[in-house]
């Protein structure tokens, strides 16, 4: 299966949906910071992998898929749930990349510069997530 870019999805997403994501993202980032200040980095760090926009993303995907089917005169509830489920499975695979990100920050941050560590961790997150996805496709 080929990876494709489909810009039509941007047109389907309303400005209020972008605003909602911005609000969720900003709020969770603030909360993670407040928790770390209040309870220390060991507790605060856990919230760096909090599913900030996952619920909103899965809900939007289900809504968009249902709308698409309705426009074609079909009942798309089941199909929309399946598409949302596949997206959630992708997120589960991506969390292996997130583990790698945390591991690199943990091990490398005291020894190397912050920019290098964060850049390497982000790159490795992408690579591990991609490898997990490709491995899953092969099985």
């Amino acid at each position, binding site marked *: 299966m080929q990876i494709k870019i489909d810009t039509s999805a941007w047109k389907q997403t309303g400005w209020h949906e972008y605003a909602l994501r911005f609000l969720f*993202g*900003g709020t969770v980032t603030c909360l993670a910071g407040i928790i770390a200040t209040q309870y220390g980095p060991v507790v605060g760090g856990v919230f*760096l992998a909090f599913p900030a926009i*996952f619920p909103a993303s899965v809900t939007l995907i289900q809504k968009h898929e249902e709308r698409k089917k309705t426009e074609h005169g079909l009942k798309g509830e089941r199909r929309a749930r399946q598409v949302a489920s596949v997206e959630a499975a992708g*997120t589960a695979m991506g969390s292996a990349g997130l583990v790698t990100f*945390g591991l690199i920050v943990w091990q490398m941050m005291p020894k190397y510069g912050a920019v290098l560590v964060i850049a390497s961790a982000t790159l490795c997150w992408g690579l591990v*997530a991609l490898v997990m996805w490709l491995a899953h496709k092969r099985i």
Partner: protein
Amino acid sequence: MTELLLRFLIGGAVVSLFAAIGDLLRPKSFAGLFGAAPSVALATLALAVRSNGALYTSLEGRSMIAGSVAMFVYAYAVSCVMMRGTRSALCVTAWAMPLWFGAAGLLWLVWLR
């Protein structure tokens, strides 16, 4: 207050950016990888290094591993329920949220505490 506002703006921007990239991509299973993007971490860690130092940030990275495992448990459970059940995504993701807290709390108890 200024730092909190900065956190909000950077966090909102990074999370929105990853979500927008995820929207563009097909197939959906690949786009889903961006649901587990380190968006909150990227926004937080850069600020944490500046104000608290490398050791503090390193500890946050270690704890993030526990949060990531909890993310796997949560997303996998949502995927299974959505595939077989009849509930809406909003309902399933909300009801499954205690799974993230439960898994993260358990890992904190046995590993991080």
